């Protein structure tokens, strides 16, 4: 039939004897064959053929019950025909409604009937609507009593379409509601290994869509919801509340009016009584939706404003609780009011004009800080709602009329001795400040005064909060902050107080610096604070105090924070770069040169710690430059380092020359400044082609700091260098230098450091040479002297360094480099492990654990099975370094891939327990941590071991070392909870 060599009519004729057979079984077989053919080629049928077939099938519906399933299949095929002539759909449905008792069929056949209806509804909407309410009625009768979740999903969809597409429901609204709502609330647990994958959630959502699809259901649905909110089952409660919330989206005043009092009393009861945060959250969401729904309705002049009366009843029930800040109901009441108020501006006005004055009054009435804190937190909640709408200029604006008292309450909180109250006050202040136009200029000055006082406060919590608030508010009022706060902080910073003990003074200065950085959130303020910070840095450098280094590090930290805050703003960023970078260089260069002559002066500035703190400052100042501006800056900085060209620095007359790349001992300190060069060039958005000097330096310098920095700098440049002959030459040069030094001599470590960094740089950009270099590293793992350092180097290869070679500083990083490294190198690591001597086995394992710990979880989980046997074998190794690194590798895996690990639970339990009595404390601790991590495996797998583990863990509870006991307590406690109620 498919090829067109047979027509369907010919087929029917050929089947004739079969179709007319008196044995129902034979007839059934015949029709089944025909239906199968039709299902495969319904699209080829002619209109005429369809007409005949439909008449035939309708007729067959009266046949024996054995035949019906096949008949329905055939009708389903026909229902998909596009050429079905008008009127046939209606007649098929009528016949089905009349002749078939759907609920006595099997699940599959019922499903067929639903499909027929769905098909017709999709293609013959107009015709079906012609049937009027009869169609609805027929369908109601048909689905009444349906039990199978698969069919229910389809049936619910049909009901939803009935309503959404405006089919005539006629007098059958209530019946339609009954036939669907009887499933509410859904109570269905999918059988284990259910192939159909229908979840409880699917049914809930699809039923909810039906129930909440039309306001016509409201009069039946709302009483049902109110009843089910009372249910003992939490799931029924949640479902009712969520359905209510959904309904509110389409309901109006008319539907809700009658039920508002009982809805409110149910919601109130739940919020006041429940112990479950989930129920509470859903109640609040429902209340919010109700209030929003009532606010939306258009009022005609003669009807009562329902929102008004609804809110009044809420206020009446809640307001007296607000006056009792010690009692349990205060928070639930506040939350209810906030949920209702948050729905619309109108609701907000009505609630706040009662609640705000009340709260303000209560604040004055209750003198205790803890009570005040509660009250202020509630007040804060309402203020935060106001932020949603901004400050609307209206006569009736409650908040504006209460400005004076709100401000006085917040200010009094800020001066309260209780830190907790201060913190809430600071949050309230932030909200008030962000309401444009709320605070008067005099208030603002007061705000700034308070913030300065609190920022310099001894308590770190309120100091941090005040700084954060200042940072948030500064962009709103840049003038006030740069005019008041910055000078005050500067003054504070410069004041030399003799009477203070030096420690206090130090921490005060520290907070000043932090506050200056925190407030620099607007370009105009940055232009004020940066000079102050730099000025202070110069002052500290000249000073001779002991805390010099620490002082300079803190200035650098503040500068770094400012840099991060102004990165996004082009103007601010360029200003910052132009000001800070030359200034830092101008301070560092003479300091480094002076030291060659007089070793004592200004020494602190070029200490490694300080230089390391400057690196992020320069880096952050550079990363966001546009390429043109960056190029401009390069033309100054690079000649400085290469040729000692100091002319662009402010105050550029120096007694001797700056030659960091010259050989000779007297240039040792100058060479350290390579760190600053690294920070600059490695963060540039463009590449700089100039590497040879760095290469030489990194191999030859004996000072580890300088050598490492030079290696990093070289790696950063190599990573960005465009591919081509030039790059190949540079790399060849590097390899030629590394290889001989690696072999022997005093500079092996330097050569290794350079090798690691170059490998990293190439690995990131998928350069072909990287595999050669990695192989070299793998070979070095068996080196007795360098092996441990190489193993640690794998961490460097996998992790993201903070200062160079990451996306932020425009490095060329391919996203999959870790996976790639894993696939090519882990087999080699495993092989190496098996072949290695006992003294170096640990190196391989350590390298492996670094690689595994940095791998994305999904990749790890797929590769884990092949590696686990190796790790388990390593646990039996007697070397404690191997044990320790294996345990530290296994612990995160237990948490992340519990399913795979649970296959080996027996081995794991045994090994971990035996290692808890290792003579080495660190191994005992790691083993106990692993035993603790075991509890994240599926409980069913663990239960057989529970008693044994609990017994075994009793011993380390009495370990002689406290740190071991601590882990034992944690692990044992967790094992006790396994499989117990309440876990």
């Amino acid at each position, binding site marked *: 039939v498919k090829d067109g060599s047979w027509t369907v009519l010919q087929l029917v004729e050929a089947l004739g004897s079969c179709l007319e057979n008196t044995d129902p079984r034979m007839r059934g077989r015949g029709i089944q064959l025909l239906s199968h053919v039709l299902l495969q080629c319904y699209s080829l049928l002619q209109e005429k053929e369809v007409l005949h077939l439909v008449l035939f099938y309708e007729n067959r519906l009266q046949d024996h019950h054995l035949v019906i399933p096949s008949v329905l299949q055939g009708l389903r095929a026909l229902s998909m025909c596009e050429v079905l002539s008008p009127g046939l759909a209606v007649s098929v449905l009528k016949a089905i409604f009349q002749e078939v008792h759907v609920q006595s069929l099997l699940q599959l056949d019922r499903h067929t009937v639903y499909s027929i209806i769905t098909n017709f509804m999709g293609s013959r909407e107009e015709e079906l609507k012609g049937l009027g309410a009869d169609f609805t009625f027929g369908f109601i009768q048909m689905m009444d009593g349906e039990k199978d979740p698969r069919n229910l999903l389809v049936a619910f969809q049909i009901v939803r379409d009935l309503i959404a597409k405006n089919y005539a429901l006629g007098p059958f609204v209530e019946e339609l509601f009954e036939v669907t709502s009887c499933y509410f609330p859904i109570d269905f647990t999918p059988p284990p290994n259910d192939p159909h994958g229908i979840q409880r959630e699917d049914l809930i959502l699809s039923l909810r869509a039906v129930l909440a699809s039309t306001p016509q259901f409201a009069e039946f649905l709302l009483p049902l919801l109110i009843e089910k909110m009372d249910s003992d089952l939490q799931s029924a409660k949640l479902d009712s509340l969520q359905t209510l919330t959904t309904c509110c989206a389409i309901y109006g005043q008319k539907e809700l009016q009658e039920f508002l009092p009982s809805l409110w009393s149910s919601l109130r009861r739940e919020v006041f009584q429940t*112990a479950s*945060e989930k129920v509470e959250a859903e109640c609040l969401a429902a209340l919010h939706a109700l209030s929003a729904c009532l606010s939306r309705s258009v009022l005609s002049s003669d009807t009562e404003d329902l929102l008004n009366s609804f809110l009044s009843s809420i206020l009446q029930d809640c307001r007296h609780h607000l006056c009792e800040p010690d009692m*349990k109901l205060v*928070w*639930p009441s506040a939350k209810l009011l906030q949920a209702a108020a948050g729905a619309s501006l109108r609701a907000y006005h009505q609630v706040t004009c009662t609640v705000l004055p009340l709260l303000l009054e209560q604040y004055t009435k209750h003198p205790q800080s*803890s009570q005040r*804190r*509660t009250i202020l*937190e509630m007040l804060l909640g309402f203020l935060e709602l106001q932020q949603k709408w901004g400050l609307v200029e209206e006569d009736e604006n409650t908040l504006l009329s209460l400005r004076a008292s709100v401000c006085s309450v917040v200010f009094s909180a800020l001066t309260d001795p209780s830190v907790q109250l201060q913190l809430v006050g600071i949050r309230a202040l932030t909200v008030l400040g962000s309401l444009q136009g709320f605070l008067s200029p005099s208030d603002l000055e007061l705000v700034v005064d308070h913030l300065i006082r609190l920022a310099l406060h001894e308590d770190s919590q309120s100091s941090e909060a005040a700084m954060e608030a200042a940072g948030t508010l500064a962009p709103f009022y840049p003038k006030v902050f740069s005019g008041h706060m910055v000078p005050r902080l500067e003054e504070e910073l410069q004041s030399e107080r003799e009477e203070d003990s030096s420690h206090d003074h130090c921490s005060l200065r520290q907070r000043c610096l932090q506050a200056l950085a925190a407030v620099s959130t607007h370009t105009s303020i940055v232009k004020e604070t940066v000079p102050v910070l730099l000025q202070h840095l110069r002052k500290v450098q000249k000073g001779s105090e002991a805390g010099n280094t620490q002082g300079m590090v803190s200035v650098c930290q503040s500068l770094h924070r400012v840099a991060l805050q102004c990165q996004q703003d082009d103007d601010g960023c360029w200003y910052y770069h132009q000001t800070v970078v030359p200034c830092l260089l101008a301070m560092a260069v003479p300091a480094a040169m002076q030291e060659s002559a007089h070793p004592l002066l200004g020494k602190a500035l070029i200490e490694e710690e300080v230089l390391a703190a400057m690196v992020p400052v320069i880096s952050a100042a550079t990363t966001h430059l546009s390429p043109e501006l960056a190029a401009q800056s390069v033309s100054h900085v690079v000649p400085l380092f290469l040729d000692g060209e100091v002319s662009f620095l402010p105050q550029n007359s120096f007694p001797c020359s700056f030659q960091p790349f010259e050989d000779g001992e007297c240039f040792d300190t100058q060479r350290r400044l390579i760190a600053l060069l690294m920070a600059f060039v490695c963060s540039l958005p463009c590449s700089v082609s100039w590497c040879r000097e760095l290469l030489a330096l990194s191999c030859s310098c004996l000072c580890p700091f300088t050598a490492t920095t030079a290696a990093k700098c070289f790696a950063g440049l190599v990573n960005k260098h465009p591919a081509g002959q030039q790059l190949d030459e540079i790399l060849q040069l590097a390899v030629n230098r590394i290889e001989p030094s690696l072999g022997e001599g005093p500079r092996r470590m330097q050569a290794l450091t350079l090798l690691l960094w170059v490998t990293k740089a190439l690995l990131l950009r998928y350069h072909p040479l990287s595999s050669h270099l990695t192989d070299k590293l793998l070979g070095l793992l068996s080196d007795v002297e360098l092996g441990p350092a190489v193993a640690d180097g794998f961490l460097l290869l996998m992790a993201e360094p903070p200062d160079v070679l990451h996306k932020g500083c425009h490095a060329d990083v391919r996203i999959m480099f870790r996976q790639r490294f894993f696939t090519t190198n882990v087999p080699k690591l495993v092989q190496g492990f098996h072949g290695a001597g006992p003294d170096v086995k640990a190196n391989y394992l350590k390298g492996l654990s670094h690689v595994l710990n940095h791998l994305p979880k999904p990749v790890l989980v797929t590769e884990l099975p092949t590696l686990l046997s190796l790790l388990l074998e390593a646990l039996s190794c007697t070397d404690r370094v191997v044990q320790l690194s294996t345990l530290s590798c296994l612990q995160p895996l237990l948490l992340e891939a519990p399913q795979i690990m649970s296959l080996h639970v027996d081995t794991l339990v045994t090994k971990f327990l035996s290692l808890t009595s290792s003579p*080495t*404390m*660190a191994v005992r601790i790691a083993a106990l941590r692993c035993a603790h991590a075991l509890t994240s495996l599926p409980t069913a797998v663990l239960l057989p071991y529970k008693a044994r583990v609990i017994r075994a863990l*009793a011993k380390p*509870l*009495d370990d*002689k*070392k*406290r*740190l071991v*006991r*601590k882990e034992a*307590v*944690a692990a*044992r*406690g*967790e094992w*006790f*909870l396994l499989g*117990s*109620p*309440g*876990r």
Partner: protein
Amino acid sequence: GERPVTAQEEDDELPDAIDDREIFDISVFLNLAHLIRSINDPEHPLTLEELNVVEQMRVKVNDAESTVAVEFTPTIPHCSMATLIGLSIKVKLLRSLPERFKLDVHITPGTHASEHAVNKQLADKERVAAALENSHLLEVVNQCLSARS
């Protein structure tokens, strides 16, 4: 704050005795959020230490004689949760201490209306065991002992 780790504690050889602070740290680590919810601020449930239920000065340990005594102070004199709090502390310590220790958990004298009755319940091994047979009670206690909130 957290107890800082000393150099002695990191030394593999030197033994550290079980002291008051250690037992205090164990007993304070209970999660009572669901028992005393929304007293003050539901967003920041207070710890036992902040509620002054357990204080280090009320913990007495003698490692050599293997005894531990913990006094706890119910939040208010009529606190209905006193027995549950005491039970949770007791179970936590039973699970966390070596078997050799003799354990005594009781209410700080004069801080609870039915102090005597609660102490008697907590001291009675059989009643503690029986309480833990009750699955509802066990559930509540386990919630207190669970690290996840």
